[in-house]
């Protein structure tokens, strides 16, 4: 599919460059002529949106770092100064803070799309794992970034999350002290989080480079999940997908702008406008919305170490998914039973997010507990809802996905990307079989 480059240097400079460092050829082959399946829908535009979001976060972040002071006595005020006194500081910080949320929104759509169309299956396992690495780096980066404004939620969020590591037997406490650079979350912690928050986005950018490389070896998956069989299944990336991605990006940026200009604090927590105080914990600690499902899983488990293991296990399950899925059919378009389980999975993830935002003992239905205690908590409580959802979350990866691939009867998969269109009754079905040539 990658095939031979069709780039022909036109100017003298391009010819000179091409024999020394063929970057123009690389760019041309990547974003102009790259043969892309012609049936990609709008769910496939989120890769481009994500690349843009990474760029926006890096640019706004570098600017904010010019005004931010990573010290426990000045951090909170320096952020307020950015919001009030620095020219357009309010704009740049609102873009950066809300940009993190938009970045995660886009990555979740991108991931669910990959799950639905089976984009993680051979030969795209490495592509998928690199994506999981990017996601993990994003979580770490976002967590450290949230600590920097040094508000109450920043501080106590950092305390709770770094204490998770203390759950590791024997070495846990030493690792926690090592991470803190002291005996509590304090100035050394803030300093190193700032340093790492600056570093990690560039590491993400590096892994994104590998991710795109791994994408361009087998080429894009597509909504049918069928391999590209011939040139007639593809269109060049430009102008077809530059325009489609561009349109999707425009719509996405409109939504982003609504948050930045009209409700910049809607996704944040008001408690973070209180300066950090190590002696008083806010009554209700919650992470940012994009981490709530994992937080719900953590709290669902009564044992500290098991809770931590399951929370990380929820992410680890994504990494091994290519080897858990036993089905030969990629796209869930042709897997009606699994599709149903998938939609329940998406719903469960959202419910877990809802659970993560609520205090664990709150009732789910009505305003009072049922009075029926099961093990350690009331049946009508957020804890039990989290437990049921966490169970489904893991069952989806470790039980449903392996079993369904073996037991289900998938629908007929089309011969090629073009054949469902060409063999449509409206068109004469003159042996519109895929051409015999194989992928190069």
């Amino acid at each position, binding site marked *: 599919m990658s095939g031979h480059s069709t780039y022909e240097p036109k100017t003298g400079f391009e010819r000179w460059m091409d024999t020394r460092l063929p970057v123009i050829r690389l760019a041309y082959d990547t974003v102009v002529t790259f043969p892309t399946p012609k049936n990609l829908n709008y769910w496939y535009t989120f890769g481009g949106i994500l690349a843009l979001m990474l760029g926006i976060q890096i640019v706004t972040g570098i600017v904010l770092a010019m005004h931010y002071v990573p010290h426990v006595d000045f951090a909170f005020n320096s952020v307020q100064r950015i919001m009030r006194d620095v020219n357009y500081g309010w704009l740049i910080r609102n873009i950066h803070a809300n940009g993190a949320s938009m970045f995660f929104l886009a990555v979740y759509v991108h991931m669910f799309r990959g799950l639905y169309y089976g984009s993680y299956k051979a030969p795209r396992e490495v592509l998928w794992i690199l994506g999981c690495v990017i996601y993990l780096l994003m979580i770490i980066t976002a967590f450290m970034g949230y600590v920097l404004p040094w508000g109450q939620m920043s501080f*106590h969020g950092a*305390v*709770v999350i*770094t*204490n*998770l590591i*203390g759950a590791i037997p024997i070495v846990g406490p030493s690792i926690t*002290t*090592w*991470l*803190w*650079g*002291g*005996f*509590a*979350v*304090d100035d*050394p912690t803030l300093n*190193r989080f700032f340093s790492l928050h600056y570093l990690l986005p560039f590491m993400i950018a590096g892994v994104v480079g590998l991710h795109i490389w791994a994408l361009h070896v087998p080429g894009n998956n597509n909504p049918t999940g069928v391999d590209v069989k011939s040139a007639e299944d593809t269109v060049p990336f430009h102008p077809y997908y530059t325009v489609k991605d561009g349109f999707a990006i425009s719509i996405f940026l409109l939504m982003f702008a609504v948050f930045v200009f009209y409700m910049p604090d809607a996704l944040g927590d008001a408690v973070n406008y209180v300066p950090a105080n*190590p*002696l*008083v*914990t*806010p*009554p*209700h*600690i919650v992470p940012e919305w994009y981490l709530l499902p994992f937080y719900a899983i953590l*709290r669902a488990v*009564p*044992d*500290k170490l098991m*809770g931590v293991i399951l929370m990380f296990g929820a992410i680890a399950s994504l990494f091994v998914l290519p080897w858990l899925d036993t089905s030969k059919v990629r796209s869930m378009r042709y897997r009606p039973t699994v599709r149903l389980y998938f939609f329940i999975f998406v719903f469960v993830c959202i419910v877990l997010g809802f659970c993560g935002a609520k205090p*664990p*003992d709150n009732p789910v239905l009505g305003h009072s507990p049922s009075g029926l205690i099961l093990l350690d908590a009331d049946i009508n409580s957020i804890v039990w809802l989290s437990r049921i959802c966490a169970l489904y979350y893991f069952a989806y990866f470790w039980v449903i996905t392996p079993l369904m691939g073996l037991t289900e009867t998938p629908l007929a998969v089309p011969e090629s990307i073009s054949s469902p269109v060409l063999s449509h009754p409206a068109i004469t079905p003159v042996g519109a079989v895929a051409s015999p040539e194989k992928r190069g």
Partner: protein
Amino acid sequence: MADTVVGASPDPHVPGDDPNRRDFIHIAAGVAAVGLVGGLAWPFLDQMNPAGDTLAMASIEFDLGKVAAGQQVVVKWRGKPLFVRNRTPKEIEEAIKADHADLRDPQTDEERHKPGKANWLILIGTCTHLGCVPTFGGGEYGGWFCPCHGSVYDTSGRIRKGPAPKNLMVPDYAFLSDTKVKIG
């Protein structure tokens, strides 16, 4: 000798023909490089541990005269809150009574204060679950309640209910006089 057959008699002096020598150089160079990187890795890891000045600030003195009976003062120590509590006889009595209750982290009240100073309870004020600061007077055991995930501690700071695995920690401290303690 223009017609020498190539390879007929291998020249023992051609470098690289002896696989053992070549391997030795490869392995030796590799070990040296790994040793160098490994040796340098430690300083780069250890720099993140508490620095000298952080360690030097690690102990404080506190005047107990400020704390009336039934009161609790929160002091900052090593970046964490420290509870200095002057317990009432009723609290001490409750704590001793619970010594033989079903405790998750069994400890008698005796082991949690200095001998003969049963009214002075000094604890690190961070929940042993995930480090939030428990508040006094909450929960059903007359002690502390952690607002984050609902751990309940008794009047001796022992865990009685909720997700925390351990009792509230007692720091290293010593009485300098009847009214002065040194913590750390």
